[in-house]
């Protein structure tokens, strides 16, 4: 293994005990889990839940919301909006909170003489 990637890793790897502390990758991963687990649960449950309603609760899906528009189509519409809202929320968190953390982790590493 003589590729630049392998070299870079060897250098970073030598650093390992310290990379898991400091403004570290562990903090970053915890932040990701904290922010994104609720988002994942929200869109998974609402979408898979909707398909379950379609399968098992036809009466509920048939309730009229406005005019001929029934609950099923209404919830499908809501799910479109929800998906886009989740996407925008993710990008907002990633840009505002996570990117600066990534920057810190990377610059801490470089400070120790890791490549780039």
């Amino acid at each position, binding site marked *: 293994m003589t590729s*630049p990637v392998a070299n*870079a890793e060897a250098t970073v790897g030598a650093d390992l005990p310290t990379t898991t502390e400091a403004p570290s990758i562990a903090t970053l991963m915890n932040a990701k889990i904290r922010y994104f687990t609720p988002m994942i649960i929200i869109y*998974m449950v609402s979408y898979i839940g909707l398909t379950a309603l379609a399968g098992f609760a*036809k009466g509920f899906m*048939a309730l009229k919301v406005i005019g001929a*528009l029934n609950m*099923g189509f209404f919830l499908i519409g809501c799910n479109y909006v929800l*998906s886009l809202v989740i*996407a925008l929320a993710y990008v907002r968190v990633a840009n505002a909170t996570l990117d600066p953390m990534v920057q810190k982790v990377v610059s801490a590493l470089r400070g120790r003489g890791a490549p780039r």
Partner: protein
Amino acid sequence: MSITLGIFLVILFITLGITYWAARRTRTTSEFYAADSRLTAAQNGFALAGDWCSAAAFLGFSGLTALYGMDGAFYALGPLVAFCTVLLLIAEPLRNTGKYTLGDVIMHRMRRPTALLAAVSGTIVVNFAYLMPQMAGAGVLVKLLTGMPYQSAVVLVGAAMIIYVAFGGMLATTWVQIVKAVLMLAAAAVILMMVLATIRFDPLALFEQAETRYGPQYLLPGNYLKNPFDQISLGLGYVCGLAGLPHVMTRFYTVPDAKTARRSVVWVMFLVGFFFAGTTLFGLAAADFVGQDAIRAADRGGNLTLPLLAQYLGGGAGTWGGEVMLGFVSAVAVTTILAVVSGLTLSTSGAIAHDFYVNWIKGGHIEERQQVRIARVSALVIGILAVALGILAQGVNVAVLVILAICIAASANFPVLILSLFWRRFNTAGVVGGILVGLVSSVILAILGPAVRGADAVWPLVNPTIVSMPLGFLGAVLATLLAGRDRENESRFDTFSLRVHTGVAAE
């Protein structure tokens, strides 16, 4: 019908011109497989839209809605929600760890040729299961739209695809996808405006007319997917399967960094979100204006719903406006297939030439120029194989293969990718176990089910994802635990995570 062929030839001419331009900029492996990772977020977003919206999306969703009501709307919603999974879980990690393929990511994590081989099998099976119905669909569609014989149509599409990929690599493939996405969205926007103008900008009128004409049952779920578990399977298949499709993953290697990968997913979500929501309205509008009987008369599966709606909106059959609209939408439908099969061919070439031949057989010791040559030849061979399979598939119901492709992607590739990225103890045995169990259970259940055996089905579901995906995860986890601990692999996980989350050491 000649208008369709004319417009299609113009599109073909433009895309071949792009390929000539791209071929002169495609010399290294990085240029061939990943357009040198220099695309912008908007370019990649449009290309993702082009990659993901097959003819099934462009023609099928509106057809299903027109004939079966709400189930068609479910088919259209899933592909958008699926991008949430891609955005939150895999887009940035893929960019940070991979080079050209899924095999790269797995190899990077496991450093074991056996793991690489498992990833290659997952990629090739999914891609061919997806490619074959696309080729067959191209044959049927071109024949239906232009009157050209089935086999000539498959050969024409195959030849164009081979030229794009073998000469122009990822750059040409990307631009074919962008051209297709722009045309598709333009067609959708024009049709949407015309539909809205017809109903005086009151979408509720579409539902009211549909209910009056076909009864309240039409607007309820279950007209197409009779078994409730099939509804859930469809949802699961989409929401996890998209993230396991190798040709979609490949798109994230074409951007320079994680931030661009992230922004490109937001682009595609807004583009296809409006498009997919549109297909539901188009389906209802077609049921209202054109009528289900006329739609069934043209094609029993409803695949000509959108062209027929366009014809109606343009002024009806026989009028100048109607024929131009019909021709335009039909030509876009053919272009749609071209873009998808090109992406599939390129991604398969990555698995065969880059993962299997260069990295597995030769251990990576091959000169750069030789690698590009091998990649081009593999694209040619895959293309010829795809044409042969497409011709063999004539008259066979290949719809089951589309379901199977997504199902295997969700049950084999997705668990292995997720566990590789996020589970410290995951090891090579787990990769092999996950791919094997996910793949085999998907195939067996699909073969036993009603999609293949019809009324004699031993197993009740058309789409087995609801069972095969948990089995894939289970296989991966059990194999990992049974194989015992691989301390060396676990100790590398910190370095690997660092790269997954920050891109440090990423090229």
